[in-house]
């Protein structure tokens, strides 16, 4: 009897799997190790200490950049998720019509347009706008982040809406719920996991962004990634590792929280 095909029994499967995981995680592992180095070397480990975490926390530039990153990411994520939710509702709670597919494409196109192109385009537009209205604050950065976060927020929300049983909304209408009440008491509660996923995804994407930020930011508007990039150009110390470790812990924490939150809901 021939056994059914299983990729696990192919020769070299284990070796390849280990190689892949090593390529993915070994660099991160090394990065984490050196974050705890007591010396300022990135190649020579001398002893365990929290020195670089401490130094990063003392560094006003790091603190400022971190706060700015969180500020931009949270505002951008909230606005993007709001926009994406409305877009998802408009594109799923309708009978199909000519042009709907084009709208999907339009909403998702930013995922495919090279980031550098968007970055240059925004740089040009914003420099014009700055000239006209004189405002040079953080708003441009927030606007740019919001723009590229929308498609990321849109994807999980739309997926959730499409998988939702439409008869639930029909049933609500049958039971005297107006359109608003149907949304408020049936659609929205069932949509929450999707909205949370969209919010998280756009928050993380915004937090992580280098290219667009680098182009759009004015002087003194470094976010954490652009600050780190700047540091690398000078003398590189395990401080960058320490910041990375904190960011890593933060995103692991957020994903874990989300996982348990959505599990409890279902």
């Amino acid at each position, binding site marked *: 009897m021939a056994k059914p095909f299983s990729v696990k029994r192919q020769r070299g499967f284990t070796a390849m799997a280990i190689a892949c995981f090593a390529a993915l995680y070994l660099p991160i592992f090394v990065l984490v190790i050196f974050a705890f180095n007591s010396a300022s070397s990135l190649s020579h480990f001398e002893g365990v200490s929290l020195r670089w975490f401490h130094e990063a926390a003392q560094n006003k530039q790091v603190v400022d950049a971190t706060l700015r990153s969180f500020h931009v990411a949270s505002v951008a994520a909230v606005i993007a998720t709001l926009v994406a939710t409305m877009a998802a509702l408009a594109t799923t709670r309708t009978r199909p019509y000519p042009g709907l597919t084009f709208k999907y494409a339009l909403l998702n196109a930013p995922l495919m347009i090279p980031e550098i192109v968007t970055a240059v385009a925004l740089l040009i537009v914003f420099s014009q706008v700055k000239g006209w209205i004189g405002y040079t604050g953080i708003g441009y950065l927030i606007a740019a982040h919001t723009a590229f976060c929308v498609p990321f927020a849109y994807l999980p929300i739309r997926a959730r809406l499409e998988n939702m*049983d439409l*008869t*639930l909304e*029909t*049933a*609500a*209408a*049958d*039971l*005297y*719920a*107006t359109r608003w*009440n149907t949304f408020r*008491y*049936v659609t929205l*509660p*069932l949509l929450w996991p999707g909205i949370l996923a969209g919010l998280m995804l756009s928050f993380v994407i915004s937090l992580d962004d280098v290219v667009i930020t680098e182009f759009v930011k004015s002087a003194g508007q470094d976010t954490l990634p652009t600050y780190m990039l700047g540091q690398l150009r000078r003398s590189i110390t395990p401080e960058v590792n320490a910041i990375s470790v904190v960011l890593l812990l933060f995103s692991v924490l957020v994903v874990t929280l989300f996982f348990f939150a959505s599990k409890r*809901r279902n």
Partner: protein
Amino acid sequence: MNEAIGIRDVSKVFGQGDTTFTAVARVNISIRENEFFTLLGPSGCGKTTLLRMIAGFEFPTDGEILLHGENIADMPPFRRPINTVFQNYALFPHMTVADNIGFGLRMLGKSKAEVSERVIEMLRLVKMEPMAGRRTSEISGGQQQRVALARALAPQPKVLLLDEPLSALDYKLRKEMQLELKRMQHETGITFIFVTHDQEEALTMSDRIAVMSKGQVLQVGSPRDIYDAPADRFVAEFIGETNFLTGRVRKIAEETAEVMLEGGAAISATAAGVGVGDDVTIVVRPEHAEVVAVPATGSAVTKGTLENVVYFGTDTHFHVRLPDGSVFVTRQQNRPRLSSEFAVGSEVSIAVAADAARILRAGA
């Protein structure tokens, strides 16, 4: 009897331009207050579309839908005092059983005390009191069905719509729920409009049935009317098993016509609206005919070859091949000595009980 729901010349056409589909075509039905009314027909006959128009989920292309005389055809569903039990139940998965049942009342703005009182009453009616705090995913299909029913009945609608609500249940549970539904209809005094493709379900539960096909109503009547006096061939075939015989009317005396069958035998059948010399179709229900030995005596009408004997426990079905090639089925209750009387392949006669043969309306 007052009319609860009036369907007046209602049509529903889906699509636009060249690709239109008429789901419901100029239907007229009058459903009485406190009636258990069934829309029966095969899938795609328009029964669900008609139900959805009564609920307000679809709007008629043409015609009026009256609720106690008021035209509600264009009213949104949340303004209609009509509730629905959905085929897949459509219970809100993020709410408890009790919250599901109370949803309609909350949307109507009833006070908390009133809502909880009514929820308890409903839980009692459907015998689900111990499950009040459960999530809908934690209860069985039969229990979900009861919750769906309680949820739809809680706001005390004028009319309750049921869209094939029993189709997902297993046989035994379905039988149980049929009786239960009937009981609830009786207790609440609410007009029930029930949609099904299951003729047996329709016959056992309904006060009246409308048989639908291809968007049209073919016959409206009590289960007995429809079974005993089907309006046309489709109704006769759809409701229960039926034998069709063709022949020509030879003589008419009062309500009875004597018909010469194609095989040469004569049969008397109840008739309306036929004349001597007409070619007619006669329907005979399997339980009104009997296989008897040749040579036949008395009421035997036609001869054939016994092709198959199927034992069903309570009764036995005999399949007889007639000379014209068609198969005539009789259903006879089993008695201790009946089973071995006729051998497959032997010549038998078919006897039809007096008054059991019926001529279909001319042209039907």
